[in-house]
């Protein structure tokens, strides 16, 4: 389980490698919040290499989404496999976050929305 931050011209991408669960959600939140503190506003979380998310991970995303929106930014989620999409649909969080099939799709939308 690890997080990789990739800073692009139009958005900041955080890759989640492994699960986003109760054991690492605080680390994940801190990584993103540090970037927000340094000025990041358009943030994409890429789950292409992520197996699953639990309710703690979902809660971390909800909390970060609220914080980023309050800062005038947006949080987009990309690379969700069928299982993860099911999770967001079950919990109705697909209504809270824009979901994209790939990181490229999320970045293209971020560029268009600049």
């Amino acid at each position, binding site marked *: 389980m690890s997080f990789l931050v990739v800073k692009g011209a139009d958005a900041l991408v955080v890759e989640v490698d492994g*699960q986003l*669960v*109760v*054991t690492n959600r605080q680390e994940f939140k801190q990584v993103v919040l540090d970037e927000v503190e340094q000025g990041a506003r358009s943030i994409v979380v890429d789950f292409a290499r992520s*197996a*699953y*998310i*639990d*309710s*703690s991970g*979902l*809660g*971390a995303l*909800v*909390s970060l989404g*609220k914080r980023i929106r309050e800062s005038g930014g947006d949080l987009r989620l990309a690379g969700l496999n069928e*299982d993860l999409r*099911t*999770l967001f649909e*079950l*919990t*109705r*969080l697909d*209504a*809270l976050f824009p979901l994209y099939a790939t990181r490229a799709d999320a970045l293209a939308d971020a560029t268009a929305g600049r």
Partner: protein
Amino acid sequence: MQRAPTRSPTQPLDAEEMATRIPRSGHRGGGSSPPHREWIIASDVTAINGVIEGVVALCSGAGFSARHCRFNIPVALTEALSNAIIRGNGNDVARCVRVRSQIELAARDRTAGSSGIFATLVVEVTDEGDGFDLATAGSRPDAADWLEREDGRGVFLMQALMDRVECTRGAGAPGNTVRLVLHRT
């Protein structure tokens, strides 16, 4: 359940504790009993992953679907274990969580034209806390503040990803048992 001595979760276990905390597996009462595994872990969320790997291995060997093994079981079990550690035991490392997992086998009703064997995963997660009511421990998607809540989705996810979720309190003793049931499809 006997209370374990206060300790850091990273401290090595002595021989007596090792005998009670290492995972156990095999067959109860002979070769015809269903496969099972048991763990007693400290109230430390970093212990969750090892239990999940063991239960998934048990289910994979019993022919559960790939989706059940990679998604339903890990997510639901993470919720049950973190609930027991954080809510049940209050993150008190002196308190333990006991996990019993078993594949129950039953013959299908051949008069109904089917054949083969039903397989059902049953996992019981027992904490040493003061107990909580599963029915009121979480929120529901129709709650007004559902989308903006950071917590409260764990029980809902367990119920959505398992065929049955039950909660019982120990008679006359502290502790709460959450029972997860999932049928092989």
